[in-house]
């Protein structure tokens, strides 16, 4: 962290988006995380991504649970709505909020502890229900807030700062999400904004549950030799498989990729996610092949990154499946929303 907030002064040539806002307008309050924390870079990527797609700050809902990662919702898009929930319970809150108002963008920030230990059940069911949200796991393999114990994502053989070796197998959120049928599964790295920013943009626009597992080194407790989630290890074992570019509805695809390399996946409003294969023979639209490939890389101790699996799940999205009305609840007239005691009598009479 720093002791003074980022000064309000900005570069004179700072560009403005379609709303006339600069990147600085998407910042939040002063981060209190350790200096060099990967989470702060992810925060910066979210700021960049939100600015880039001209997201209206008031149309964004930020949700989180407990942990270092969950603090970060305070550090971006200060003009957005926010809810800091009980440990591991963020998906329920997101589900409820999304059920009540489907017009907003939902971004859930969680960590490996919040999602893979205490909140594992909630995480799985959010995927199962295909909640329309972007779910970011800031994954560092340790419980940073309680001084560096192994988390459920710690790899076998990774060393803690004081030398203990982890022997329990990890839960991999990417494999888990693919297993549960998620339609948008990505992995990235806090140190690679060129990859991460378009992924966040695509994930925000994706109609359904979008997961990005972001390797985010804990600079204080997990950035030493022997750790498999340090800056250095991640960089050395990092293989981008698929790059994703979000292409808004209005914009033409400018193909500077060779034919056959770029695969568009249509989103609900005619916008597209353009997938560019970086690894020969990798097909991100084939869930089984993608699953195998991710697993093989894990076995080799490598991180396969990018938009690893993407397919349209519009028909199984929560609202579509439940045929819920288009109108958010806050737009339904009070009389209709709360029809009163007489209406309740009528309903109850049906069961008598």
């Amino acid at each position: 962290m720093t002791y003074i907030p980022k000064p309000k002064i900005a570069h004179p040539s700072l560009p403005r988006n379609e709303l006339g806002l600069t990147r600085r307008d998407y910042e939040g309050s002063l981060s209190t995380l350790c200096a060099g924390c990967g989470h702060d870079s992810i925060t910066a990527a979210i700021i960049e991504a939100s600015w880039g797609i001209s997201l209206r700050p008031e149309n964004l809902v930020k949700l989180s649970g407990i942990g270092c990662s969950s603090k970060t919702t305070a550090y971006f898009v200060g003009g957005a709505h926010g809810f800091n929930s009980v440990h591991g319970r963020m998906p329920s809150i997101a589900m409820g909020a999304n059920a009540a108002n489907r017009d907003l963008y939902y971004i859930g920030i969680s960590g490996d502890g919040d999602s893979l230990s205490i909140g594992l059940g909630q995480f799985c069911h959010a995927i199962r229900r295909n909640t329309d949200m972007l779910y970011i796991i800031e994954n560092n393999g340790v419980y940073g807030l309680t001084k560096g114990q192994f988390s459920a994502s710690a790899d076998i053989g990774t060393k803690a700062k004081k030398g203990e070796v982890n022997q329990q197998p990890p839960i991999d959120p990417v494999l888990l999400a693919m297993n549960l049928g998620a339609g948008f599964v990505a992995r990235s790295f806090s140190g690679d904004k060129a990859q991460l920013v378009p992924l966040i943009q695509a994930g925000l626009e994706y109609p359904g549950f979008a997961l990005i597992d972001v390797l985010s080194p804990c600079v204080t407790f997990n950035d030493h030799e022997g750790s498999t989630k340090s800056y250095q290890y991640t960089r050395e074992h990092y293989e981008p498989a698929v790059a994703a570019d979000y292409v808004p509805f209005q914009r033409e695809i400018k193909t500077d990729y060779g034919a056959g390399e770029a695969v568009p996946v249509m989103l609900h409003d005619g916008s597209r996610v353009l997938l560019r294969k970086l690894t020969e023979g990798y097909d991100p639209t084939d869930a089984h092949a993608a699953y195998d490939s991710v697993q093989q890389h894990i076995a080799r101790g490598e991180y396969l990154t990018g938009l690893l699996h993407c397919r349209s799940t519009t028909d199984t999205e929560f609202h579509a499946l439940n045929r819920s009305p288009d109108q958010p609840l806050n737009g339904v007239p009070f009389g209709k929303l709360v029809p009163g005691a007489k209406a309740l009598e009528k309903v109850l009479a049906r069961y008598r």
Partner: protein
Amino acid sequence: MAVTDTSHPDYFHKVVDCQWACPAHTDVPEYIRLIAQGRFTDAYLVNRRSNVFPGILGRVCDRPCEPACRRGRVEEKPVAICRLKRVAADHKDEFRDRLPPIPTQKNGKKIACIGAGCASLTVANDLMPLGYEVTIFEQFAIAGGLMRTNIPSFRLPGPVIDEEVAAIVDMGVDLRLGHRIESMRKLLEEEGFDAVFVGSGAPKGKELNLPGRQEGAANIHIGITWLESIAFEHVKSVGETVLIIGVGNTAMDCCRSSLRLGAKSVKVMARKPRQFFKASEWELEDAEAESVEIVINRSPKCFVIEGGKLKGMLFDVMEYEVDAQGRITGERVTAEEFLPADDVILAIGQENAFPWIERDLGIEFDKWEVPKVDAVTHESTRPGVFFGGDAAFGPKNIIWSVEHGHQAAISIHQYCQGKPASERMAPGVNLQSRKMGMHEWSYNNDYSGIERRLVPHVSLKERFKNIDIEVELGFTAEQVVAEVQRCLNCDVQTVFDAKLCIECDACIDICPVDCLTMTPDGVEADLRTRLKAPATNVTQALYVSEPLKHTGRVMVKDEDVCVHCGLCAERCPTAAWDMQKSWVKWPHAIDQEVAR
């Protein structure tokens, strides 16, 4: 790109834009911090080391530092550097006991300085502590040169000059007032000086030979001579309607002096549009605030004389064609205009003049009668004769003259020790960390969004009562407190150690002005376009690190709009960034002596 060599004395010096722009390389941020701490005498001495006359320059400096000030690039107005200098001078305590001691045992070398202006006084200031015996010859009965005679006392009061001149003269300088040098030959051959420094200024005002000039002579005045006559109280009044020809800083002093001598209507006549004016913007503002009218596109044609007396002037009304680069590509006369005048003052420039230097002494002059002087050593073509100030290269300003004095003093010292003047100590730079604790720096790193303070002026009602009333009052205590916080501490440098960097992006994310980028290396032109914010100011070098150890990329910093908030260093988990104060060592004669 090549890895930036930050040990080169110019690299960090250029980042301190004000110091780099100052001819005398005054350590501006350092003295502003001292003022912030209430250490006015210390601030004065930091100034005095470089510019010798902080009280004078704090009022009338041309301030090349202010247009250069980085603050003017991140927001509208630069720091009021010049006015803060005056604060140090106005509030200092006794300082003379902290100047270098003057040896009682002299070194046996005698130096003559011609003209008691800022250049000669600087030479004396630099050489007296080394044991030289310095004699200054001055034609007038008072020292100060053009500072005394050409700058009106409502801008620069006499006592301010007195104090700073006395600080030098009291070192034991043999000041011979009322002693005009009429023959260089006599001085060189009969007086026995080991070296001669010519600091006689540019005392000759330019003439405008148009029809009627001779007939109207009684009411047509040469600007700098006229100002001199006012300074010595030979001139005490002027007509009601005055025209000033020319629009440089002398013209501004002439028009404002006219108002104080009784003129009711004063017009400054400019040949060209405003963007071509030579006067400093603030001097124009001050004149206009006093209801002086500046008339553009008027080219003088002739003086109109009736009955042997000046009635006014005839002007051609001009029109100019200006190209996209702002250059004049064509001009034509569209009309003629008569403007009445009781007095006309010519302020169209000045030049140096050496009728007293015989042309057979080995001191060569070029075809414009300007002496041939080495730009670095200030040596003339005759060994032992040096030129500085306006006398050397034509009219510049006080701060340039001071620097000439410093450089000439080094040469004179070398010459008197029998060494070539070209053997000069090189500039250097020292860096010192400003880190005190986890997030503590020994400078105020937070950015203050306060706007530039305006110096209070004596009211328009009061100021014309007497020509000696200083118009500018100087900052109030509250204004000082605010203005010092506007300085960006550009001398507290961001210093990067590539070996320590873990490429976590923390510095890049926190930088408020997008100065930093980690990117694959490339040639400069390409690299400048690939940064987080494009680096368009090519005069400011890029800071390029060695390859980083994880990815082989380089860290690139565009220094152009860095606000030196130190957040990159605060956010850095490995202290790869540090904030370090750069001390630019700009050698003077005393340093050359110490290094010996």
